[in-house]
C-alpha cells in the first residue's frame, strides 16, 4: 500500500516509469473486474483502458489517508462500469430478447473466441453467464466479495453505501446466482 502511494507521488512529479509500474501492477485486477462484470473480453479490454485513462487524469485527487490505492482504483473502475452499463442499456434490452431463447444463447456462447472457450471451460462459462444475468448492483457486490475477496469495509468504500446494504446485496446476489445456476442445470452434487 505504501509502495503504491509512493509510486503515485512519483507519477504526480512526472515520473513515467512510476506510472508504468502502477499500470503493470494493477492492470490484471482491473481487467478481471471489467471482464467479470461485462462477460466480454474485448469490451473489458476497452473498459480497462478507459479506467486507467481516468485514473491518470484524476490521480491528483487520490488521498492515501482515505484508503489504499487499490480500493480507490476499484472505486473508479466500478463507477466507470456503472456508467458503461447505463450507456449501453438500450443495446442490452435488444439483446435480452435473444437471451430469452436458450438456443440463441448457446450460439452466442459458441461464438466466443477459441482461446476464450478453452480458458473458461464449460462450468466457468455457465457461471460467468449466470453472473452477467444478475442486476448490476448485485453483480458488483458479488464480484467484489467473492471474486476480488474484498472486506465488507472496502466494499462499503467502493460502493459508497452502508455496510448493512453491502451485506444485503451480497446475500441477495448469492441467492439469485444460485437460483440462476439451478435454472441452467448446474446443481450441487
Amino acid at each position, binding site marked *: 500500500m505504501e509502495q503504491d502511494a509512493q509510486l503515485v507521488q512519483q507519477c504526480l512529479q512526472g515520473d513515467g516509469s512510476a506510472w508504468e509500474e502502477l499500470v503493470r501492477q494493477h492492470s490484471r485486477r482491473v481487467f478481471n473486474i471489467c471482464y467479470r462484470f461485462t462477460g466480454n473480453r474485448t469490451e473489458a479490454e476497452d473498459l480497462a483502458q478507459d479506467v486507467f485513462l481516468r485514473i491518470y487524469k484524476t490521480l491528483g485527487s487520490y488521498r492515501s489517508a482515505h484508503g489504499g490505492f487499490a480500493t480507490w482504483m476499484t472505486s473508479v473502475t466500478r463507477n466507470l462500469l456503472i456508467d458503461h452499463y447505463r450507456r449501453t442499456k438500450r443495446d442490452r434490452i435488444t439483446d435480452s430478447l435473444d437471451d430469452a431463447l436458450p438456443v440463441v444463447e448457446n450460439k452466442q456462447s459458441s461464438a466466443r473466441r477459441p482461446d476464450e472457450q478453452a480458458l473458461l471451460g464449460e462450468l466457468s462459462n455457465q457461471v460467468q453467464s449466470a453472473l452477467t444475468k444478475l442486476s448490476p448492483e448485485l453483480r458488483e457486490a458479488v464480484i467484489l466479495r467473492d471474486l476480488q475477496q474484498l472486506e465488507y469495509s472496502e466494499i462499503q468504500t467502493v460502493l459508497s453505501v452502508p455496510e448493512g446494504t453491502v451485506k444485503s446485496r451480497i446475500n441477495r446476489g*448469492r441467492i439469485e446466482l444460485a437460483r440462476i445456476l439451478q435454472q441452467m442445470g448446474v446443481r450441487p452434487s
Partner: protein
Amino acid sequence: MTWTCEQTELNLTDYLDGLLQPEQQRAFDLHVNGCDRCTPLVASVSHAIANLRSLPELETPPRLVYNILDATLGPRDTVTGWAAVRAWIRGFASPRFAYGMVSVAATFLMIVTASGFNWKKPKISDLSPANIYHNSNRAAHRAYARSTKYVSDLRVVYEIQSRLRQDNELPTAPEGTLPESTPQKDPGRTDGTNPSTPRQQNRANDINSHMQVLAEELPILSGRFCFVVNGTLSVMSGGGRTR
C-alpha cells in the same frame, strides 16, 4: 432461540462467512437440518459460491499495458542505431535466457567430454567425426567393462557375506563331541561325497583368490575383522576367532 426460514435467508451470508454468533449458529444449524426448504437453499448457495470462486483469474491481454501507456504517456520513441543494438543485447540478460544458455552449455560440455575430447591437450583432430566415433566407442566399452567389473566385485562380496552368515548360523560344537578325523577322506570333507569336479575346484580357487584380495583391501567386513592365513579367510567375530 426460535429460527425461521426468513431469518435463514437474511443471515445466509453471515452464516457462510462465519460471522454468526455461536447461539445464532446453533439455531441456524438446528433449523436448516430439519427444514425441507432451507436445506437445499444453503446447499445451492454454497455450491454457487464455490463455483464462483473457482473461476480462473484471466491473464492481462498482452497489448493492454502498451495501449494504456501509449494513451497516457504518448507513443514511445522508436529506438534505432546502436541504441537498438544495445537494447537487443540487454534482452539476453534476462534470467530466463541465462538459465537456458547455462543448460545448453552444460549439455554441450557433457557431449564433448563423452566423445573423448581431451580438455588438457585439445587437438583439432579430436573433433573430426571419425575420431569422435572412435573415442565414443572406446569410452562406451570402457564404461561397460568398468560396470561389469563392478557387478562382478559386488557378487564376490555377496558370496563372502553369505559364507560368513552360514558360518555364524552353524552351531558351535563342544570340544568333547568333535568328529573324529577320517584320514581316508580329504581334509574338511565330512559328508562323504566325492571331491569336487575340476570346474567346481576352479571356482573355489577363484573365490579364494578374490577373498584374499578383499581381505587385504577391506580389513573390516560386515563388522568383523578378517585376515588370510595359508590361503584361508579367517574372521574375528567378537572375542573369538573362526576359520
